[in-house]
């Protein structure tokens, strides 16, 4: 068992079960959860998550809005639907995860750092119609507002540069994905 887990056990404050209005729709989606852990075991990205999906659903059910929305787990979900496919309770887990992402953006102040990459990625695609790595990374660094972050990426960036894999953002591709995404947003009634 990794020490982080034990650490949290020791230091985590007592969790007071409450009811969260914001999480209510998501709670209803996962109320049937029986904590079997099939979702977590099937999740290809679970290793990168700070809370496993099982823990996340548990916190949703316990009404822990702060912790849920501050978790990076939401942004590690790659929407592969494996958990939904395998859940023995037939719960719409991927949809619940998407709903949580939406919530997280609504409560942006809590999730700014976690969502920085996610948001930069989507914005990048919106404006270029595909991923432009250099633009993406600069947007990400700006959004994260962390001066140390670019340093962490220096080594891989140099290696990529050496192999000619990095391109400066030349003429933007101007794909039509931006319009498509706007249309979807409109249809869903989101700002």
């Amino acid at each position, binding site marked *: *068992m*990794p020490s982080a*887990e034990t650490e*949290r*056990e020791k230091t*985590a404050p*007592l*969790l*007071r*079960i409450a*009811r969260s209005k914001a999480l209510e729709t998501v*709670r*209803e989606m996962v*109320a*049937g*959860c*029986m*904590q*079997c*852990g*099939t979702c*977590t*075991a*099937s999740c290809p990205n*679970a*290793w990168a998550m700070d809370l*496993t999906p*099982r*823990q996340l659903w*548990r*916190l949703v*059910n*316990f009404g822990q809005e702060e912790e849920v929305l501050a978790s990076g787990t939401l942004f590690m979900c790659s929407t592969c639907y494996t958990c939904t496919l*395998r859940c*023995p*309770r*037939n719960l719409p887990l991927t949809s619940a995860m998407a709903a949580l992402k939406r919530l997280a953006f609504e409560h942006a102040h809590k999730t700014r750092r976690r969502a920085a990459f996610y948001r930069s990625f989507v914005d990048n695609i919106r404006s270029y119609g595909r991923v432009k790595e250099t633009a993406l990374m600069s947007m990400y660094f700006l959004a994260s507002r962390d001066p140390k972050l670019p340093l962490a990426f220096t080594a891989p960036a140099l290696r990529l540069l050496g192999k000619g894999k990095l391109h400066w953002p030349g003429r933007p591709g101007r794909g039509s994905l931006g319009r498509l995404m706007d249309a979807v947003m409109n249809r869903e009634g989101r700002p």
Partner: protein
Amino acid sequence: MTKTYDALVVGAGIGGIRSALDLAQIGRKVALIEAAPAMGGLLQKLDHQFPTDHCGMCKSLPLTQRDNSSQFCMRKGLFHRNIDLFLSTELTALDGDPGAFHATLKRRSSFVDPARCIGCGLCAAACPVRVPDEFNAGLTMRPAIHLPVPQAIPNHYVVDLEACERCGACVKACPTGAVDIKGEERARFRVLIAGEKSEDLDRLSALIADMGFPVTHVSGGAQAVEAVAAVAADPESAVRLVILGPDLGEMAGERLLGRLRELSPHLPVLAAAGERAAAKDLLDAGALEMIELPPDEKRLRPWFDKFFMRQVSDEMVEIDVAAVILAAGFTCFDPTPAGDVLGYGQLPDVVTSLEFERLLSGTGPTGGRLVRRSDGAPVRRIAWLQCVGSRNLKQGDFCSSICCMISIKEANLALKATAGQPGGPVEATVFYMDMRTFGRDHQHYLDQAAQSGINFVRSRIHSVVPDNGPEKGLHVEYMGEDGVLRSERFDLLVLAAGARPPASMARLAEAAGIELNPWGFPKIMPFQPARTSRLGVFAAGSFNGPKDIAESMIQSGAAALGASRLVNLYAPIREKQPAPEPVYADVSRQPSRILVALCTSCPVFGQTLDGGALARDLAAMHGVSEVIPVERVCTGPGWESIVEAAASDRPGRPKPNRVIIGACMPYAYVPRLHQLGRRLGLDPGLMDVVDIYSPLMQAAREGAHPLEDAETSLRMAVRKLAGSEPRLSGSYQPVEQHALVVGGGLAGLTAALGVADHGFPVTLVEEQEALGGIALNVRRTAGGEDARKYVEGLVEQVRKHPNIRTFTDARVSLASGRSGHFLSFVTAPQGTMHLLHGATILATGGHEAKVYEWGYRVHKSVMTQQELENKLADGQIDARSLSGVAMIQCWRSREQARNYCSRICCQNAMKNIAELKRRNPELQVHVFYRDIMTYGFQEEMYTEARRLGALFIRYSPDNKPRVEFEEGRPVITAFEPILGRDIQVRADILALASGIEPNDASEVAELFGVPLTEHGFFQEADPKWRPVDFLKHGVFACGLARAPGSMDETIASAKAAAQRALCVLSEKRLVPGRVVAEVRPTLCSRCGTCIEVCPYHARSLDPVLDRIVVDELLCQGCGSCAAACPNGASVLRGFSDRQVLDVIDAALEV
């Protein structure tokens, strides 16, 4: 001719057998039918059962009137005088009303004549087909002609029509001509095709002609009628099948079929059409099936061939019955579709639990050696995965109830089977969701398993991949409860596949006219645990929902009681005139004169044996007066010739006084020996049947010395009979036809009514001032029925019943006697009175355990689940004014002080959650639990509770929730295992699941000489096979005093106990079996060794006579006492030392 039976039992698994035996024992005639070609059901394939880890099926054989039934291993089969068994038979229609049903049965032919099949196996050796063998769960291959189970008696080969290729090899191989695959019948099976000539019909006609059938083609319906009429009178050339094409002219549809039926009532008709809609008229009018046009040769050929085989060999049987019991059991879930994750079907080392049982079995594919199926390497690590096909909304949202215990058992067995292997026993790991050990003794079983080193991991395995490393095997990935993903290597993965309704359920439900529940099992009426939606049709055993053996036995007993009550209404138990007791001649003073009859019908006999030499050798033996050859003993004339020889006095040869028959299948003759005894006036104990054909068959195959083997068997029988002494007077126990029921709660009331409805007087003794017991506290059952109203109605019925005398505020103060004849004293306010009764039912009940922890009795906000239910029902609690309710399950249950599950607390919690949430959907409900025991279809309540938003938080017994109070309101702090940290809940009400405790029954137990478990429940004779009986015959237990259970389960056990009591009461006198032990007092030193070794508690020291006495009713003739006695004073009748030594001599002398 229509035969009449009292009851029809559908399904000859253990549930059906139990029901049939229960009815047969009270003198009812039962038709027992089974769709498979062998009896025994699923259990034939399972060698061991929890919690005893061995078999014990034979314990359900009758204990009294033992000579009416077979007394050998029930896996081999069962005979009972009152049961007619029909194998390969299905119920196709059930008309009429309760008490007067008319059942239509379809007997499928096995294509092997059972009268001629001698089980030699030459046919199977010749058969070129190989298909997966059902008996070994598909792990081995078998020929098309095969034995359905290897050990059945009699064991006849059957042809699997689906697999058979009609090559005829078996027909040629059979030495007795028993196999008939209807080769010659083909030329006489005249097929008439009617309809306007078309290309399609021509092709059809050519195809059928090509298969060897004579075909006539006529142009229309009218011509078809003419053609049928023309040859109707002549059986040789009669039309045997009519196929009606699309264009029939004027004469068509119902009119045509009606006319054909007039001419030949049983003539089968098929409709040939391009699509189903076109043939609808004909099918509605009575055509059996449709042939698609244009004919698809590949499909049509085998289909038509099978159709022909069934037409000419299947037989319809019509019977009249008063009641029907359905006991078709269940099938196991097939995990193949789920195979993408678990690899079943693709990876040979992933097996189902049934397959694993076969791997462990001595008759299985590996003879019981545990090896990897992929490469035969020894198995070192095994994993079990629970809830495959159960508790899954996608596959079936119910709990199969039995898999948890089965997996523990299998792990136990695997440990035992590999204990001696180098490197020690296997490592066993069970991956589970909730460990559902809800039976009375099951928690103990789980604890023991955990102690013996079996790992239990709470997790669902999510994927299985083959290990490509040097060790091979399977990589199993799972997530531990700590949230860490692990990967482990196992050699074998066992999927605990859940239960499913039998494959034939839809057909059976339609034929029997019963409704099904959402899970595909029969719908059962509330408070009537064995009744289906159709009056007079009962569901027994695991057919009405997955159940373990003990509960199946109880369900079957309850079903039998329901059926026998119905039968009784229409044909009361006849004052059974005990058949005039046969008077057997006293031959004890005569020298032994043995008649040996040898069956010579089998051709192998002549081929391998010199019959003359055998007869000469035997005739020379001392005590043998004559040896006669008999042509086919199994036929009527053959049997008569034996009777004649045995009954005749001839000059120089006085009448024989002992008979030995040398034939095949000795067990089949046992019932007939009784008839023979009656006719000859000779004790059947002086007759024997010897199997001389098994050695002959073996000789024919292996070239051994048949003469020696057969002769040895015969010589041994001769020696044994020569030394046996006739038993002249049987000891009989007259029966007082009166029952005593102790306890007037739900169980006592139900049992009393069950007995009294059969016309026997019942005395009901209740300690309290009022009848009804604890069941009156229950407001609504889990199904939403008004429980109190039901119990009050029951009390009313008992009060008014002419056969029931009730004493309240009374107790049994003294009891003595034995089965059939008890003398008890009942002390009531009216005074003390004595009572003679033949059977006793103990239903002393239980109560809700009292809690003195967690603020109960201190804070008003703390109450038991039962109190919460009552307060909600009375309106004392307004759910809308509450903000939170907390529940703690398993209070002091399933650990040291009360190490059993009370079964009902979890469903009570679900019931209360549903009620609370119904009144206040916003209410927060938190449940602290260890394992949720919503077994069977209750799983739905659990799903619903979670859907409604109740939160379930698991705790472990070594880290229980802590309860504090703030201004009288409970604050519960507990460790949350998923998050790995403490959580805190505030609630207005804390409900505690306090569990069930039995009432103090120590006094009653002592009075009747029956044992209690360590927790004070009644200890039954056998936890599986005799769940409501005591070892002491004639005393039965039911209700909460036996084990915790819901109302329906209590009612079922009470009915089962009543049915068992009826088995005693319906006899005028109890007759013990023939083989019982006796004591020679002159040799006996009263050491008491035999008393201790007797497994049936049949022996005791009589202080007045100063003798060891044997209760012949209890003695089952096992011989333990004879083996243990140091003085040779204990003797088993028919197995005296002299006889046994003589037999050994005979075995060695040839």
